[in-house]
């Protein structure tokens, strides 16, 4: 039982660290703001959540201490990190950052153009 839990703790923490590493590789190697943000806000969120879960399990099994702040941290991170990614992307789009030159679809530009035409007609 104890060996299994130890294995689980190690698995969670190593997986989380690996996901954070993959996220940082994504931030370096991907071509534009939007794809980089995609890598950072998804992979790093899951990575940090797994590390926190591993920490929680460690203190729970070895010291019998239920640290509710870690659970709160997991829930908080799960809610806030995608929102911050969304806000950064939105700010980048609204201040006119170009998409990668090989991307082929931009639905939001057409939507904005349509809304602009409609408001000028009214």
């Amino acid at each position: 039982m104890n060996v299994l839990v130890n294995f689980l703790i190690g698995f969670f923490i190593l997986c989380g660290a690996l996901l954070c590493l993959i996220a940082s590789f994504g931030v370096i190697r991907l071509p534009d703001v939007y794809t980089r943000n995609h890598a950072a806000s998804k992979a790093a969120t899951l990575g940090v959540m797994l590390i926190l879960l591993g920490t929680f399990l460690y203190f729970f099994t070895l010291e019998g201490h239920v640290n509710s702040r870690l659970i709160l941290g997991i829930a908080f991170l799960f809610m806030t990190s995608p929102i911050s990614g969304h806000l950064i992307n939105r700010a980048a789009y609204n201040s006119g950052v170009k998409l990668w030159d090989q991307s082929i679809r931009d639905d939001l530009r057409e939507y904005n153009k349509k809304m602009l035409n409609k408001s000028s007609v009214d």
Partner: protein
Amino acid sequence: MRQPNNMILETALKLLLFFIVLFSIYIFTAGHYYPGGGFIGGLMTAGAIVLLLITYDIKTVQKILPVDYRIVTAIGLLFSIGTSAGALFFNVPFLTHVFTHVEVPVLGDLALHTATIFDLGVYFVVIGVTMTIILTIGEDE
């Protein structure tokens, strides 16, 4: 009626504010036995109000929380000086604190300490000063 600027942020904020304010109160009350206390609790409450300011604008926040933060600072200083000077009435030096165990019906045995009231003063002063600084910078035109 104001138009919502960013629906995702405003909807999430309604849930997140409870988390942040609850955690700041926890940190404030746990300050005697664990890391925390008035300063960091006050900063975190001010952070929650700043998050509200980021999401809405100054006028809306002033409507939600009709508080003059300069008065909050004054009340905090009054609390701290009052608990410190209260010791003089009992012929003990300034800033002497007392604590006692009280049996409360629902909550059980509570160890009440006058240092908590001093800490409450610190909490109010930190909120008041931080919000005054941020609001004076934000209102500048």
